[in-house]
Protein backbone atom coordinates (compact mmCIF):
# COMPACT_ATOMS: atom_id res chain seq x y z
CA UNK A 1 0.00 0.00 0.00
CA UNK A 2 2.85 2.34 0.89
CA UNK A 3 4.54 1.35 -2.32
CA UNK A 4 2.16 3.49 -4.35
CA UNK A 5 3.52 6.67 -2.74
CA UNK A 6 6.88 5.86 -4.24
CA UNK A 7 5.47 7.46 -7.34
CA UNK A 8 7.02 10.95 -7.14
CA UNK A 9 4.00 12.82 -8.46
CA UNK A 10 1.68 11.01 -6.07
CA UNK A 11 3.96 11.63 -3.10
CA UNK A 12 4.29 15.26 -4.06
CA UNK A 13 0.52 15.68 -4.13
CA UNK A 14 0.10 13.90 -0.81
CA UNK A 15 2.87 15.94 0.84
CA UNK A 16 1.39 19.20 -0.45
CA UNK A 17 -2.02 18.27 0.95
CA UNK A 18 -0.63 17.14 4.31
CA UNK A 19 1.80 19.99 4.95
CA UNK A 20 -0.71 22.63 6.09
CA UNK A 21 -2.22 20.10 8.50
CA UNK A 22 1.16 19.96 10.22
CA UNK A 23 2.31 23.53 9.74
CA UNK A 24 -0.72 25.43 11.08
CA UNK A 25 -1.27 23.45 14.27
CA UNK A 26 2.52 23.56 14.82
CA UNK A 27 2.53 27.36 14.59
CA UNK A 28 -0.52 27.72 16.83
CA UNK A 29 0.75 25.29 19.47
CA UNK A 30 4.23 26.82 19.58
CA UNK A 31 2.87 30.38 19.91
CA UNK A 32 0.41 29.28 22.61
CA UNK A 33 3.13 27.21 24.29
CA UNK A 34 5.47 30.22 24.31
CA UNK A 35 2.76 32.36 25.86
CA UNK A 36 2.29 29.87 28.69
CA UNK A 37 6.02 29.21 29.02
CA UNK A 38 7.01 32.87 29.32
CA UNK A 39 3.95 34.63 30.73
CA UNK A 40 1.49 32.24 32.22
CA UNK A 41 3.41 29.61 34.17
CA UNK A 42 4.85 29.81 37.66
CA UNK A 43 8.54 29.95 38.56
CA UNK A 44 9.92 26.78 40.13
CA UNK A 45 10.24 26.52 43.91
CA UNK A 46 13.96 25.73 43.58
CA UNK A 47 15.05 27.07 40.21
CA UNK A 48 12.98 30.23 39.94
CA UNK A 49 12.46 31.55 36.43
CA UNK A 50 15.24 29.45 34.87
CA UNK A 51 12.71 26.61 34.77
CA UNK A 52 11.33 28.38 31.68
CA UNK A 53 14.34 27.10 29.75
CA UNK A 54 12.85 23.63 30.29
CA UNK A 55 9.98 24.43 27.88
CA UNK A 56 12.38 24.53 24.95
CA UNK A 57 15.18 22.32 26.25
CA UNK A 58 13.11 19.24 27.04
CA UNK A 59 11.00 19.21 23.82
CA UNK A 60 14.21 19.72 21.81
CA UNK A 61 15.73 16.73 23.61
CA UNK A 62 12.63 14.60 22.91
CA UNK A 63 12.82 15.57 19.25
CA UNK A 64 16.55 14.83 19.06
CA UNK A 65 15.76 11.24 20.10
CA UNK A 66 12.51 10.95 18.13
CA UNK A 67 14.03 12.21 14.87
CA UNK A 68 17.02 9.90 15.25
CA UNK A 69 14.70 6.95 15.86
CA UNK A 70 12.69 7.83 12.76
CA UNK A 71 15.93 8.11 10.80
CA UNK A 72 17.14 4.70 11.97
CA UNK A 73 13.80 3.09 11.10
CA UNK A 74 13.74 4.72 7.64
CA UNK A 75 17.30 3.57 7.08
CA UNK A 76 16.41 -0.01 8.02
CA UNK A 77 13.36 0.08 5.75
CA UNK A 78 15.55 1.46 2.97
CA UNK A 79 18.11 -1.29 3.38
CA UNK A 80 15.66 -4.18 3.79
CA UNK A 81 12.76 -3.34 1.49
CA UNK A 82 14.61 -0.90 -0.77
CA UNK A 83 11.64 1.43 -0.60
CA UNK A 84 12.70 4.49 -2.61
CA UNK A 85 11.22 6.99 -0.16
CA UNK A 86 12.90 5.51 2.91
CA UNK A 87 16.43 6.80 2.36
CA UNK A 88 14.96 10.08 1.18
CA UNK A 89 13.08 10.47 4.45
CA UNK A 90 16.22 9.72 6.50
CA UNK A 91 18.18 12.21 4.44
CA UNK A 92 15.50 14.89 4.90
CA UNK A 93 15.27 14.25 8.65
CA UNK A 94 18.98 14.40 9.49
CA UNK A 95 19.50 18.19 9.40
CA UNK A 96 16.29 18.72 11.40
CA UNK A 97 17.47 16.27 14.04
CA UNK A 98 20.90 17.88 14.13
CA UNK A 99 19.29 21.28 14.73
CA UNK A 100 17.13 19.94 17.57
CA UNK A 101 20.16 18.29 19.17
CA UNK A 102 22.17 21.49 18.86
CA UNK A 103 19.34 23.50 20.43
CA UNK A 104 19.08 20.92 23.23
CA UNK A 105 22.81 21.16 24.00
CA UNK A 106 22.86 24.95 23.82
CA UNK A 107 19.79 25.58 25.99
CA UNK A 108 21.00 22.91 28.42
CA UNK A 109 24.27 24.75 28.75
CA UNK A 110 22.45 28.05 29.33
CA UNK A 111 20.40 26.34 32.03
CA UNK A 112 23.33 24.52 33.58
CA UNK A 113 25.41 27.63 34.20
CA UNK A 114 22.99 29.41 36.54
CA UNK A 115 21.65 26.25 38.23
CA UNK A 116 24.46 23.69 38.41
CA UNK A 117 27.23 26.25 38.32
CA UNK A 118 28.81 25.02 35.09
CA UNK A 119 28.21 25.29 31.33
CA UNK A 120 29.29 21.73 30.67
CA UNK A 121 30.37 18.53 32.40
CA UNK A 122 31.37 15.20 30.92
CA UNK A 123 28.70 13.13 32.61
CA UNK A 124 26.99 10.20 30.89
CA UNK A 125 23.89 12.15 29.81
CA UNK A 126 25.61 15.19 28.35
CA UNK A 127 28.32 13.14 26.67
CA UNK A 128 25.88 10.70 25.06
CA UNK A 129 23.80 13.59 23.67
CA UNK A 130 26.96 15.16 22.25
CA UNK A 131 27.67 11.79 20.57
CA UNK A 132 24.14 11.91 19.12
CA UNK A 133 24.94 15.30 17.61
CA UNK A 134 28.08 13.88 16.00
CA UNK A 135 26.09 10.88 14.71
CA UNK A 136 23.78 13.30 12.88
CA UNK A 137 26.76 15.18 11.43
CA UNK A 138 28.45 11.90 10.48
CA UNK A 139 25.28 10.68 8.77
CA UNK A 140 25.07 13.84 6.65
CA UNK A 141 28.79 13.77 5.81
CA UNK A 142 28.77 10.08 4.89
CA UNK A 143 25.82 10.57 2.58
CA UNK A 144 27.78 13.02 0.47
CA UNK A 145 31.11 11.23 0.73
CA UNK A 146 30.64 9.04 -2.36
CA UNK A 147 30.35 9.88 -6.03
CA UNK A 148 27.56 7.35 -6.33
CA UNK A 149 24.67 8.70 -4.22
CA UNK A 150 23.36 5.17 -3.73
CA UNK A 151 26.55 4.09 -2.01
CA UNK A 152 26.40 7.18 0.19
CA UNK A 153 22.80 6.40 1.05
CA UNK A 154 23.61 2.84 2.05
CA UNK A 155 26.69 3.71 4.11
CA UNK A 156 24.83 6.46 5.95
CA UNK A 157 21.92 4.08 6.60
CA UNK A 158 24.28 1.56 8.18
CA UNK A 159 25.75 4.31 10.39
CA UNK A 160 22.24 5.41 11.42
CA UNK A 161 21.33 1.85 12.45
CA UNK A 162 24.57 1.27 14.37
CA UNK A 163 24.22 4.65 16.06
CA UNK A 164 20.70 3.77 17.23
CA UNK A 165 22.33 1.93 20.14
CA UNK A 166 23.02 5.40 21.55
CA UNK A 167 19.29 6.24 21.87
CA UNK A 168 18.49 3.91 24.82
CA UNK A 169 21.86 4.83 26.33
CA UNK A 170 20.82 8.50 26.35
CA UNK A 171 17.38 7.74 27.77
CA UNK A 172 18.64 5.54 30.61
CA UNK A 173 22.03 7.18 31.22
CA UNK A 174 20.59 9.07 34.18
CA UNK A 175 19.37 5.82 35.76
CA UNK A 176 22.35 3.60 34.98
CA UNK A 177 25.10 5.92 36.14
CA UNK A 178 25.72 8.78 38.53
CA UNK A 179 25.24 11.94 36.54
CA UNK A 180 24.99 15.65 37.26
CA UNK A 181 21.88 15.74 35.06
CA UNK A 182 18.72 14.98 37.00
CA UNK A 183 16.68 11.81 36.32
CA UNK A 184 13.65 11.74 34.01
CA UNK A 185 10.76 13.95 35.11
CA UNK A 186 8.00 13.14 32.63
CA UNK A 187 8.51 9.72 31.07
CA UNK A 188 9.01 7.55 34.13
CA UNK A 189 7.34 4.66 35.92
CA UNK A 190 5.73 6.62 38.75
CA UNK A 191 4.24 9.28 36.47
CA UNK A 192 5.41 12.84 35.87
CA UNK A 193 7.07 14.73 38.71
CA UNK A 194 6.12 18.09 37.23
CA UNK A 195 3.23 20.20 38.42
CA UNK A 196 0.37 20.42 35.89
CA UNK A 197 0.81 24.20 35.48
CA UNK A 198 4.26 23.41 34.06
CA UNK A 199 3.34 20.20 32.29
CA UNK A 200 0.77 21.94 30.03
CA UNK A 201 3.18 24.37 28.32
CA UNK A 202 5.74 21.57 28.12
CA UNK A 203 3.35 19.31 26.20
CA UNK A 204 2.20 22.18 23.97
CA UNK A 205 5.78 22.83 22.96
CA UNK A 206 6.45 19.11 22.62
CA UNK A 207 3.51 18.52 20.26
CA UNK A 208 4.27 21.81 18.47
CA UNK A 209 7.86 20.73 17.83
CA UNK A 210 6.69 17.31 16.60
CA UNK A 211 4.30 18.90 14.08
CA UNK A 212 7.00 21.39 13.04
CA UNK A 213 9.21 18.38 12.35
CA UNK A 214 6.43 16.72 10.33
CA UNK A 215 5.87 19.79 8.14
CA UNK A 216 9.57 20.37 7.61
CA UNK A 217 10.21 16.70 6.85
CA UNK A 218 7.58 16.74 4.08
CA UNK A 219 8.96 19.99 2.68
CA UNK A 220 12.53 18.70 2.66
CA UNK A 221 11.47 15.38 1.11
CA UNK A 222 9.73 17.31 -1.66
CA UNK A 223 12.89 19.33 -2.23
CA UNK A 224 15.04 16.20 -2.35
CA UNK A 225 12.68 14.64 -4.85
CA UNK A 226 12.80 17.75 -7.03
CA UNK A 227 16.59 17.76 -6.79
CA UNK A 228 16.67 14.13 -7.89
CA UNK A 229 14.45 15.01 -10.81
CA UNK A 230 16.67 17.96 -11.75
CA UNK A 231 19.71 15.70 -11.63
CA UNK A 232 18.06 13.14 -13.85
CA UNK A 233 16.91 15.76 -16.34
CA UNK A 234 20.25 17.52 -16.64
CA UNK A 235 21.92 14.12 -17.13
CA UNK A 236 19.43 13.29 -19.87
CA UNK A 237 20.07 16.64 -21.51
CA UNK A 238 23.81 16.09 -21.37
CA UNK A 239 23.40 12.70 -23.02
CA UNK A 240 21.17 14.20 -25.63
CA UNK A 241 23.67 16.95 -26.36
CA UNK A 242 26.43 14.36 -26.57
CA UNK A 243 24.34 12.35 -29.00
CA UNK A 244 23.59 15.31 -31.22
Amino acid at each position, binding site marked *: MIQQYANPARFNRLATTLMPWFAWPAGILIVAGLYFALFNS*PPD*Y*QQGDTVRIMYVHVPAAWMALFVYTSMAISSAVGL*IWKHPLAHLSAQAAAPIGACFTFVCLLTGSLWGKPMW*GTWWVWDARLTSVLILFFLYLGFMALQNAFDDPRRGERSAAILAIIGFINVP*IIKFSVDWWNT*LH*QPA*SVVKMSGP*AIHSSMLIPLFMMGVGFTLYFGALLLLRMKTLMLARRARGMSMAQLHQQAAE
Partner: protein
Amino acid sequence: MTRKQRRMNFIVLGLLTLGVAAALVLTALEDKIVFFYSPTDIATKKQIPTNQQVRVGGLVKEGTWKKPNNNLTHRFTVTDLRHDISISYKGIIPDIFREGQGVVVLGKLQPDGNFQADEVLAKHDEKYMPPEVAEALKKSGKWKHAEEKK
Protein backbone atom coordinates in the same frame (compact mmCIF):
# COMPACT_ATOMS: atom_id res chain seq x y z
CA MET B 1 14.73 -17.44 2.46
CA THR B 2 14.15 -14.38 0.36
CA ARG B 3 16.75 -11.66 0.04
CA LYS B 4 14.55 -9.29 2.01
CA GLN B 5 14.41 -11.72 4.91
CA ARG B 6 18.14 -12.24 4.73
CA ARG B 7 18.77 -8.50 4.89
CA MET B 8 16.33 -8.14 7.78
CA ASN B 9 17.93 -11.00 9.73
CA PHE B 10 21.32 -9.50 9.10
CA ILE B 11 20.25 -6.12 10.51
CA VAL B 12 18.43 -7.61 13.50
CA LEU B 13 21.33 -9.94 14.34
CA GLY B 14 23.81 -7.11 13.82
CA LEU B 15 21.91 -4.83 16.20
CA LEU B 16 21.61 -7.59 18.81
CA THR B 17 25.33 -8.30 18.65
CA LEU B 18 26.07 -4.61 18.84
CA GLY B 19 23.72 -4.21 21.79
CA VAL B 20 25.38 -7.04 23.72
CA ALA B 21 28.83 -5.68 22.92
CA ALA B 22 27.82 -2.17 24.01
CA ALA B 23 26.32 -3.53 27.24
CA LEU B 24 29.54 -5.44 28.02
CA VAL B 25 31.75 -2.45 27.29
CA LEU B 26 29.59 -0.05 29.30
CA THR B 27 29.47 -2.47 32.24
CA ALA B 28 33.24 -2.91 32.13
CA LEU B 29 33.75 0.84 32.02
CA GLU B 30 31.21 1.59 34.72
CA ASP B 31 33.78 3.11 37.07
CA LYS B 32 34.96 5.45 34.34
CA ILE B 33 31.48 6.53 33.28
CA VAL B 34 30.13 7.44 36.72
CA PHE B 35 30.39 11.15 37.21
CA PHE B 36 31.02 11.04 40.94
CA TYR B 37 31.66 8.72 43.87
CA SER B 38 29.28 8.51 46.78
CA PRO B 39 30.55 9.00 50.32
CA THR B 40 30.09 5.24 50.73
CA ASP B 41 32.41 4.61 47.77
CA ILE B 42 34.99 6.87 49.41
CA ALA B 43 34.63 5.10 52.74
CA THR B 44 34.69 1.53 51.44
CA LYS B 45 36.68 1.52 48.21
CA LYS B 46 40.40 1.45 48.74
CA GLN B 47 41.41 2.53 45.26
CA ILE B 48 40.35 6.15 45.50
CA PRO B 49 43.57 8.10 45.29
CA THR B 50 44.34 10.95 47.67
CA ASN B 51 46.72 12.70 45.31
CA GLN B 52 44.39 13.33 42.40
CA GLN B 53 41.11 15.13 41.90
CA VAL B 54 37.91 13.12 42.22
CA ARG B 55 34.23 14.00 42.36
CA VAL B 56 32.01 13.21 45.32
CA GLY B 57 28.26 13.58 45.16
CA GLY B 58 25.39 13.28 47.60
CA LEU B 59 23.04 15.42 49.63
CA VAL B 60 24.10 18.38 51.73
CA LYS B 61 23.30 17.16 55.23
CA GLU B 62 20.74 19.31 57.02
CA GLY B 63 22.22 21.69 59.57
CA THR B 64 25.84 21.24 58.53
CA TRP B 65 26.34 24.16 56.15
CA LYS B 66 28.58 26.75 57.80
CA LYS B 67 28.38 29.88 55.74
CA PRO B 68 31.58 31.82 55.36
CA ASN B 69 32.27 34.78 57.57
CA ASN B 70 35.63 36.30 56.74
CA ASN B 71 37.81 33.66 55.18
CA LEU B 72 35.14 32.73 52.59
CA THR B 73 35.39 29.05 53.26
CA HIS B 74 32.16 27.08 53.09
CA ARG B 75 31.99 23.96 55.22
CA PHE B 76 29.32 21.32 54.88
CA THR B 77 28.80 17.59 55.06
CA VAL B 78 27.83 15.47 52.07
CA THR B 79 25.91 12.33 52.87
CA ASP B 80 24.40 9.39 51.04
CA LEU B 81 22.63 8.49 54.30
CA ARG B 82 25.08 5.71 55.01
CA HIS B 83 28.35 7.55 55.15
CA ASP B 84 29.24 11.22 55.50
CA ILE B 85 32.16 13.21 54.28
CA SER B 86 32.99 16.73 55.36
CA ILE B 87 33.84 19.24 52.70
CA SER B 88 35.58 22.57 52.79
CA TYR B 89 35.39 24.90 49.83
CA LYS B 90 36.60 28.38 49.13
CA GLY B 91 34.69 30.11 46.35
CA ILE B 92 31.28 30.88 44.93
CA ILE B 93 28.55 28.29 45.30
CA PRO B 94 25.67 27.89 42.78
CA ASP B 95 22.33 29.59 43.42
CA ILE B 96 20.39 26.44 44.20
CA PHE B 97 22.92 25.06 46.69
CA ARG B 98 20.80 24.23 49.70
CA GLU B 99 20.79 21.91 52.67
CA GLY B 100 18.98 18.71 51.79
CA GLN B 101 19.68 19.19 48.07
CA GLY B 102 22.05 17.32 45.81
CA VAL B 103 25.58 18.47 45.25
CA VAL B 104 28.66 17.27 43.36
CA VAL B 105 32.08 18.50 44.48
CA LEU B 106 35.41 18.17 42.72
CA GLY B 107 38.55 18.13 44.76
CA LYS B 108 41.06 16.07 46.72
CA LEU B 109 40.59 13.74 49.60
CA GLN B 110 42.85 14.83 52.45
CA PRO B 111 44.80 12.27 54.49
CA ASP B 112 42.66 13.17 57.53
CA GLY B 113 39.51 12.07 55.69
CA ASN B 114 38.23 15.56 54.96
CA PHE B 115 37.66 16.71 51.43
CA GLN B 116 39.11 19.88 49.99
CA ALA B 117 36.86 20.99 47.13
CA ASP B 118 37.94 23.14 44.20
CA GLU B 119 34.53 23.19 42.50
CA VAL B 120 31.00 22.82 43.82
CA LEU B 121 28.14 21.98 41.44
CA ALA B 122 24.51 21.86 42.49
CA LYS B 123 22.50 18.84 41.42
CA HIS B 124 18.75 19.28 41.40
CA ASP B 125 16.13 16.58 41.46
CA GLU B 126 13.46 15.77 38.89
CA LYS B 127 10.63 17.59 40.67
CA TYR B 128 9.27 20.83 39.32
CA MET B 129 6.48 22.82 40.97
CA PRO B 130 5.44 26.36 41.86
CA PRO B 131 6.63 27.67 45.25
CA GLU B 132 3.05 27.79 46.61
CA VAL B 133 2.55 24.11 45.86
CA ALA B 134 5.83 23.23 47.55
CA GLU B 135 4.75 25.25 50.61
CA ALA B 136 1.34 23.60 50.71
CA LEU B 137 2.90 20.14 50.44
CA LYS B 138 5.29 20.90 53.27
CA LYS B 139 2.48 22.22 55.46
CA SER B 140 0.21 19.26 54.86
CA GLY B 141 3.07 16.88 55.64
CA LYS B 142 2.90 15.26 52.22
CA TRP B 143 6.32 16.55 51.32
CA LYS B 144 8.59 13.68 50.43
CA HIS B 145 12.03 14.79 51.24
CA ALA B 146 14.95 13.39 49.32
CA GLU B 147 16.45 12.14 52.56
CA GLU B 148 13.30 10.36 53.64
CA LYS B 149 12.71 8.80 50.25
CA LYS B 150 15.90 6.72 50.42
